[in-house]
C-alpha cells in the first residue's frame, strides 16, 4: 500500500536518498539497477539491507531471512554508522519506529520516513514538508506547436498535456479543505476532487466527476478564461502560479476521447414530454444533454447547416478543433437527441407554434448580430465584421478556397479592431491566410485587453502587432470604394468608469493613418432581432436581450426559457452552459409537477375544473400534429 502523501512523487520517481548525518548517498548501482543500501540491526546483529530505489517497488533483500511482521531494532548509515531511527515520528500504519532519510525532491532536500516493520511498506512525509515540495513543483507548461510553423497551418496550437505532465501537475494541487477554485467556476465543478482522481491515475473516474457538472470538458478546457475564473482564486496562485486546472480538464477529456472509454450515461425512461431547444450552441447543447438524461424527448433547431453554434462558426479550428464539437454532438445524437439544421425559428415556426407541439421551449440563440462603430466608410469593400470573417473561415472553410466555394478575403496588411478573444481569433486567422502585417487596434492599454492571456501570448508569438491606445475614426477608401487605410486617433487613459477600467480619452490632433487592405471589426455582438420581431409578447430589456427570471431562466412567456448570450449579451461559453443548466433544472422542476400533465397552454385550475381526470400526456402527444 502506498500512502497518498507521496503520491505525487510516485511516477517514475526514483529516490535519491542521503544520510541525515553525514549527507552521503545511500544509492548504489547494482547490476544496472539502482538500490539503496543500509545496515539493519536485528536481535543485536548487523546485517546488510538492500532496498529498491523506486518508490512504488517494494523489494528488500537482506543477508538474513526476512519475515513478514519482523521489526528491525535499528537501521544505520553504511558510511557513518549512525542510527537513522528518529523518535519524532511513528509509522502511520502500525505505529512502530521509523527511520529518517533525506530525499531530494524537485531540487530540495526533504526528510522522508520509512517504517522499520518488514511488510508494512509505509513511508511518508510530514504535512509541512509535503506542502513545501508541492510549492516547489513548477506549473507544467503545455507543449505547443512551433510558433514559426503554426502560422502556416490551421492545426490546433497546444498539443495538450502528456500523461506524465498531467500527473505531475495534478500533484501540485494542495487539496484545500475549503477550495476557492470551485467558487470561481460558473458551473461549480468539484475541482480538487477531480484533480485528486487524476493524481491517483483514476482518469476514468475523474472524467465522470467533471461530467457531473460540466458535460463538455474538452470544449471548456480549451476555451474557458480560466485565469479569470477557477485559476484566479487558486491558493497556489497567490505565491506562485496556480494549478493549470484548464489544462487538466482538457487532458482528461482528450484522454477519454483518445482511449474511447466513454460510457453512456443512465437515461431515465421516456416521460413523453417534448422539449424544443432553439440554437445548438453551448447553452442549447447543455439543456439538451441534461434533459435527455431525465427522459425528455429533445429536438434542437439550428439555423445554420451545421450544429454547434459559436463553437462551429466562431471559434477557429486552431483553438477548438471541429472534430471535438462533432464528437460531442454525435454523442448527443446517439442518446436520441434530434437535431434539425436549417431551421430558423421565428420564420419557419413561431414560438407559439413550438409551444403547441412541445411542452417547453428553450431559447439559446446567442448574440449573433455584429456591432459596428458607425463611422465613415464602414461599408467600404473589405471591411468585415468579425462574424463574417470567422464564419467564412471556420464554417464555410474559406481558407480551403477554391476547393470550398466560399472566397477568402486576402490581403497583405490586415487590421483587426477590438481587443477581445474574437479579435485575437481574427488576427491569428488572418496571419494564417498569409498576411504580412496583422495589427490589432485597441483603444485601451495592454492591461485592459479583455482576451484570455493565452490568446494574447499566442498572438504575440505569432508576430501580430498591437497598436494600443488607438481608436479608429474613419475608414479611408480609394476611388473604387475599396479600403486602403484606417484613420485613427491616439488615446490616453482617464478616470476609471463604471466597469472599473480606465476610460480612454482621445488626444486632440494626434490622428494617424494605418494603411491596410482589410479591416475586421471585432467590437462585440448584439442579440439577433428575429425572435423579437416574430414574437411580440417576448419581453426584452434595454440591451436588446431577453428578460428572464434569474432563478429559473423563464421568460415572460410561460414554458419558454432562455439562456446564454441572448440573456447576458456576449459572454463566455461556460457561462452559457451554466445558464443552460439552471434552465434545464427549472424546466424539469416545472414539468414534473403533477399540474403540468395538462397541456401547457391551459391553466392547471381550468383543466381540473373542466375535466375531472386530466388527459394522460401520452395520449395527447400522439394525437398532436407532428412538426
Amino acid at each position, binding site marked *: 500500500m502506498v500512502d497518498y502523501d507521496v503520491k505525487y512523487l510516485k511516477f517514475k520517481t526514483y529516490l535519491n536518498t542521503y544520510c541525515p548525518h553525514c549527507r552521503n548517498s545511500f544509492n548504489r548501482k547494482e547490476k544496472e539497477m539502482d538500490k539503496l543500501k543500509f545496515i539493519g540491526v536485528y536481535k543485536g546483529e548487523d546485517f546488510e539491507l538492500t532496498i529498491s530505489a523506486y518508490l512504488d517497488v517494494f523489494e528488500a533483500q537482506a543477508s538474513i531471512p526476512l519475515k513478514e511482521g519482523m521489526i528491525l531494532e535499528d537501521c544505520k548509515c553504511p558510511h557513518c554508522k549512525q542510527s537513522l531511527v528518529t523518535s519524532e515520528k511513528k509509522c502511520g500504519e502500525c505505529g512502530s519506529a521509523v527511520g529518517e532519510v533525506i530525499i531530494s525532491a524537485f531540487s530540495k532536500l526533504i526528510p522522508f520516513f520509512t517504517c522499520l516493520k518488514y511488510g508494512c511498506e509505509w513511508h511518508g512525509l510530514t504535512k509541512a514538508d509535503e506542502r513545501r515540495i508541492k510549492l516547489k513543483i513548477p506549473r507544467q507548461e503545455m507543449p505547443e506547436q512551433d510558433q514559426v510553423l503554426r502560422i502556416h497551418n490551421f492545426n490546433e496550437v497546444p498539443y495538450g498535456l502528456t500523461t506524465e505532465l498531467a500527473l505531475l501537475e495534478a500533484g501540485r494541487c494542495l487539496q484545500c479543505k475549503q477550495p476557492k477554485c470551485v467558487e470561481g467556476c460558473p458551473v461549480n465543478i468539484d475541482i480538487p476532487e477531480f484533480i485528486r482522481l487524476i493524481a491517483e491515475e483514476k482518469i476514468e473516474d475523474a472524467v465522470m466527476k467533471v461530467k457531473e457538472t460540466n458535460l463538455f470538458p474538452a470544449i471548456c478546457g480549451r476555451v474557458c478564461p480560466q485565469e479569470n475564473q477557477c485559476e484566479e482564486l487558486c491558493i497556489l496562485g497567490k505565491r506562485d502560479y496556480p494549478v493549470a486546472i484548464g489544462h487538466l480538464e482538457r487532458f482528461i477529456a482528450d484522454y477519454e476521447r483518445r482511449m474511447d472509454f466513454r460510457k453512456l450515461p443512465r437515461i431515465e425512461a421516456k416521460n413523453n414530454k417534448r422539449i424544443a431547444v432553439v440554437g445548438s450552441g453551448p447553452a442549447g447543447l447543455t439543456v439538451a444533454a441534461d434533459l435527455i438524461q431525465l427522459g425528455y424527448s429533445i429536438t434542437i433547431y439550428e439555423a445554420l447547416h451545421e450544429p454547434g453554434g459559436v463553437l462551429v462558426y466562431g471559434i477557429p479550428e486552431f483553438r477548438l478543433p471541429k472534430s471535438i464539437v462533432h464528437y460531442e454532438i454525435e454523442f448527443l445524437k446517439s442518446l436520441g437527441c434530434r437535431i434539425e439544421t436549417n431551421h430558423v425559428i421565428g420564420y*419557419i415556426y413561431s414560438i407559439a407554434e413550438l409551444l403547441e407541439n412541445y411542452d417547453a421551449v428553450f431559447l439559446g440563440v446567442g448574440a449573433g448580430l*455584429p456591432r459596428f462603430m458607425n463611422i465613415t466608410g464602414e461599408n467600404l469593400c473589405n471591411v468585415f*465584421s468579425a*462574424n463574417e470573417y470567422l464564419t467564412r473561415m471556420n464554417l*464555410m472553410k474559406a481558407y480551403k*478556397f*477554391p476547393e470550398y*466555394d*466560399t*472566397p477568402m478575403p486576402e490581403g497583405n496588411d490586415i487590421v483587426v479592431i477590438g481587443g477581445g478573444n474574437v479579435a485575437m481569433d481574427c488576427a491569428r486567422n488572418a496571419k494564417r491566410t498569409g498576411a504580412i502585417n496583422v495589427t490589432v487596434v485597441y483603444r485601451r492599454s495592454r492591461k485592459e485587453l479583455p482576451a484570455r492571456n493565452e490568446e494574447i501570448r499566442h498572438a504575440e508569438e505569432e508576430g501580430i502587432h498591437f497598436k494600443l491606445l488607438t481608436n479608429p475614426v474613419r475608414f479611408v477608401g480609394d476611388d473604387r470604394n475599396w479600403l486602403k487605410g484606417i484613420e485613427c486617433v491616439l488615446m490616453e487613459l482617464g478616470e476609471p468608469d463604471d466597469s472599473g477600467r480606465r476610460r480612454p480619452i482621445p488626444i486632440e490632433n494626434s490622428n494617424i493613418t494605418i494603411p491596410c487592405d482589410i479591416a475586421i471589426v471585432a467590437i462585440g455582438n448584439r442579440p439577433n432581432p428575429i425572435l423579437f420581431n416574430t414574437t411580440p409578447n417576448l419581453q426584452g430589456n434595454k440591451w436588446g436581450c431577453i428578460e428572464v427570471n434569474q432563478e429559473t431562466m423563464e421568460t415572460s412567456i410561460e414554458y419558454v426559457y432562455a439562456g446564454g448570450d441572448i440573456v447576458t449579451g456576449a459572454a463566455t461559453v461556460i457561462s452559457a452552459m451554466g445558464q443552460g443548466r439552471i434552465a434545464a433544472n427549472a424546466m424539469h422542476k416545472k414539468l414534473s409537477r403533477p399540474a403540468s400533465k395538462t397541456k401547457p397552454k391551459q391553466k392547471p385550475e381550468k383543466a381540473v375544473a373542466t375535466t375531472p381526470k386530466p388527459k394522460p400526456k401520452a395520449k395527447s402527444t400522439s394525437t398532436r400534429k407532428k412538426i
Partner: protein
Amino acid sequence: MHQIIRKQEMAKGTIVRFDVRAPEIAKKAKPGQFVIVRLTETGERIPLTIADKDSFEGYITLIFQVVGKTTAIMRTLNEGDAIKDLVGPLGKPADIQKVGTVIMVGGGTGVAILHHIAKAFKEAGNTVISIIGAREKDLLILENEMRIISDELVITTDDGSYGQLGFVTEPLQRYLDERYDIKEVYAIGPIPMMKFVCRLTKKYNVPTMVSLNPIMIDGTGMCGGCRVTVGNETKFCCVDGPDFNGHEVDFDELTKRNSMYLKEEKDALLFSIRG
C-alpha cells in the same frame, strides 16, 4: 435534402426554374422572402428569392440566373436530384396592402421575383400595371404569367426585337405622366435598372420599393456581409430587407460591394472546370 421535382430552362438556358420540394418552407413563405441554398458539403451559401410556392403540393419555385459557380452547378442538376441545404423563408415579406394602382417594374431575372409580389398585389385587390424588360426577345421570362395577373402589361427590349424598343423607364415615365392614381412602384431587376427607376419616381414623388441582392453568407443577420446604406443608415439586407424604400438606397455602394469577389468567382468557376 430537398428534391427537385420540376426543372425548366428559360432565356436560352441562362435562367433556370426549379420546383423544389420543401413543404415546411412552402407553408410559411410569403412574397419577397428568400431562401439560402447550399448544394454540397463544400458549397457556398447563396441567397435565392422564392419565386412562387405551392403549400398544398409542398414545393417552392426558385428561378435563378447562371452567374457563378454554384448556379452553374445548379443548372446541371435534373429532376430527381436533391439540394443539400435549403434555409428559409428568410427576410421580411413584402408589405402588400390594398393601395389602388401599383406599377410593377421588372428586368431580367428580377421578373421572377416580381411575379410573386405582383400576384399578391393583385390578390389584395390592387390594379396592377406591369412593365417588364429584357435585353432581347429570347431573354424575356414569365411573359404569360405576368399577363395573367396584370391589368396592363408593357414589354420592352433593349434591341427592339419584341415589344417596345428601349428601357423600362420610358413606359414608366409615360404612366407617371398620364396617370395620377399611381400609389406605389415596385422595381426589381439589375441594380442600374432599379437605380434609374428610383431616380424617375423620386421626381414624381411616388413611393418605390426595390428588392436588393447583396452578398450574403448566413442570411439570418449574423455576418453583416449584406449591409446596405438606406437613408444614411446601415441596414442588414437579410433581416431588415430585402425590400427597401428605393429612394433612400445607396445603389452605387451596393454595386461596388457586389463586385467584391468577381475575381474569386472566376477562379472558383475555372477550378470547377479544370478540377
